[in-house]
């Protein structure tokens, strides 16, 4: 084989010649480090030249926020959008909606009235200042998103004979046992060198308080521990059967179960309480923008070529097979990099290489409608998430309309990694079948109550070719600035041009940053 006779350097140079320079720079895919979200920046658009025009490509949140702010400042704007709908990934599926994925499979959502699924963004952390401020400004009603539910399940096929465990049992017992053990370590003197006697005494007290340990530091069946993990028989009113405390899970089984892996999930910054969702579906945000910038959008416009000169920018696009050209003085391009990398665009090598260096992650979401809300009625689970080591990864229960009588919709799978690719590779009907089969291991009611389902495998989405742009530390270093810098008359914006990938906050903060820089450039060049 020729391969054997090539060394690594020769290979790379061969690849450079064959697949393009940027191929050589492609780094391994893994999540980039996300930065802290910042307060919404103040925009200063003073001195906007009269009649200056900006062409915006893509009507996702980044494109629409750019259009909104620029038009408010007096710029003439136009947006070209591939879909017949604005919002991009900020999207909600309801009964009657259809989705045709790459490959041509068309799904029709059969949910009953009032039910929906957010196939993309679904959570708004309280510290996502840009999203929160636009929602507040536009009057988009928010309600709490139940992330953490102590009564939801943690499930492992490898632990507790595959029986799902309540989060509160795993959480209280894990906290209990580690505190008990640390208490023993303190008592046995293992920390004598590190802590003063006073510190050790206080630490021991804190462990008792933290985990409901008894006076000797033991975590065991008691009123106090049952007040954390729940009772075997709840306290009665009147003359019911008498209260029974519950028995903690076996310590070794718990440690071996790896269910502790899920405890921190609701504690991480981006999932902390309070966290929100728009009432009625995430697309309320998109709709609020459309009310304000809808008149600037040309729909069903597929951009195929982007050109620029010293005097302006032009984009070639097709609408129902007809080729058209839109021109403007400047351009804000929010087309996802997975697609932009395939569109001939007149920008320098640095930006081109940056665009080609960011692969898009895999993800699948599957919405399942059931004839009744058995999770509430039978399992006392109101909102929140159950986690599992099955390919579906998680089940999310609706955070609204608690106690309603009719059909309800669950998020029946939300997966990344190999399982996301595997689900995406299946025909839609198979995906639903598998999600129901696996979910039934946690909720046996699935089999009886299942009504219909719809799935979105993000690599099959024709207008993103993936879930979000996956940066690595290496690619950030090599390409991020080149991606964000203005090239002539073109600036890029969107989730991919931010340190908050896979969040709407990234899309909005990137758009505001990009248009401020563009405005400064416009004013300084006097053009």
């Amino acid at each position, binding site marked *: 084989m020729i*391969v054997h006779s090539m060394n690594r350097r020769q290979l790379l140079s061969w690849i450079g010649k064959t697949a393009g320079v*940027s191929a050589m720079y492609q780094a391994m895919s893994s999540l980039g480090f996300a930065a802290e979200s910042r307060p919404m920046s103040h925009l200063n658009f003073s001195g906007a030249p009269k009649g200056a025009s900006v062409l915006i490509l893509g009507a996702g949140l980044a494109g629409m926020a750019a259009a909104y702010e620029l038009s408010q400042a007096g710029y003439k704007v136009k947006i070209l959008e591939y879909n017949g709908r604005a919002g991009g990934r900020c999207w909600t599926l309801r009964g009657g909606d259809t989705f045709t994925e790459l490959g041509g499979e068309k799904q029709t959502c059969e949910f009953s009235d009032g039910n929906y699924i957010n196939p993309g963004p679904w959570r708004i952390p309280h510290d996502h200042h840009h999203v929160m401020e636009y929602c507040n400004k536009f009057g988009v009603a928010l309600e709490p998103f139940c992330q953490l539910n102590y009564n939801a399940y943690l499930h492992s096929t490898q632990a507790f004979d595959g029986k799902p465990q309540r989060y509160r049992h795993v959480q209280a017992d894990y906290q209990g046992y580690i505190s008990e053990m640390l208490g023993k370590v303190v008592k046995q003197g293992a920390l004598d060198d590190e802590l003063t006697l006073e510190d050790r005494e206080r630490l021991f007290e804190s462990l008792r308080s933290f985990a409901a340990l008894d006076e000797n530091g033991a975590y065991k069946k008691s009123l106090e521990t049952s007040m954390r993990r729940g009772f075997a028989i709840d306290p009665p009113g009147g003359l019911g059967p008498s209260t029974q405390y519950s028995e903690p899970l076996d310590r070794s089984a718990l440690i071996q179960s790896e269910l502790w892996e899920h405890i921190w999930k609701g504690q991480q910054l981006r999932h902390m309480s309070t966290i929100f969702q728009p009432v009625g579906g995430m697309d309320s945000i998109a709709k609020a923008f459309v009310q304000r910038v809808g008149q600037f959008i040309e729909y069903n416009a597929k951009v195929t070529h982007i050109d620029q000169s010293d005097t302006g920018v032009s984009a070639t696009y097709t609408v129902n097979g007809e080729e058209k050209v839109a021109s403007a003085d400047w351009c804000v391009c929010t087309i996802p990099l997975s697609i932009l990398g395939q569109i001939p665009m007149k920008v320098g090598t640095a930006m081109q290489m940056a665009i*080609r260096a960011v692969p898009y992650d895999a993800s699948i979401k599957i919405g399942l409608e059931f004839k009744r809300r058995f999770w509430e009625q039978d399992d006392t689970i109101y909102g929140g998430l159950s986690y599992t080591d099955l390919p579906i990864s998680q089940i999310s229960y609706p955070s609204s309309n608690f106690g309603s009588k009719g059909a309800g919709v669950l998020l029946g799978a939300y997966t990344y990694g190999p399982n996301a690719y595997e689900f995406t590779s299946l025909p839609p009907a198979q995906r639903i079948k598998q999600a129901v089969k696996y979910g039934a291991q946690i909720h046996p009611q699935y089999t009886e109550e299942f009504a219909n389902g719809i799935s979105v495998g993000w690599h099959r989405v024709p207008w993103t070719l993936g879930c979000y742009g996956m940066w690595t530390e290496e690619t950030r270093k090599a390409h991020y600035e080149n991606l964000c810098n203005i090239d002539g008359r073109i600036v890029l914006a969107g989730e991919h041009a931010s340190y908050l990938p896979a969040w709407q906050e990234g899309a909005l903060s990137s758009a505001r940053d990009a248009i401020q820089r563009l405005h400064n450039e416009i004013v300084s060049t006097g053009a």
Partner: protein
Amino acid sequence: MNIKRLVSTAIVMCSAMVCVSVSAKEEPMFSSSGVFVQQEGENIYRALCQGCHMPNGEGAVGAGQYPALAENPKLGTPHYAIFMVSKGLGGMPAFSQMLTDEQIAEVVNFVRASFGNNHTDIITAKDVTPFSN
């Protein structure tokens, strides 16, 4: 030994002892770690590549596109496909963390001999290693 090697060793040992290879027509197989469980070229294609390149390698076109692998002259040499699968490019992610060198060789052999591509020269993990680490 990095995690990938560890898992790959585990998978090789496992496949020698108990794991039965499942053909594309049976119940779909799901992986249980960050590395794909499928070992055979066609099974890897069905679990991974066809999500983008489609079941018959025909590719797909929307606002962007996935190139067809069917009758693709660029598959004449194995290097390009090995590189694409290992390192990725543009909208195609790198899979060297999710596939072992053996698996990459298997799936490259499969696409080079399928969908109207008739290249019968076989590559092995050794040919992949220079690209994948």
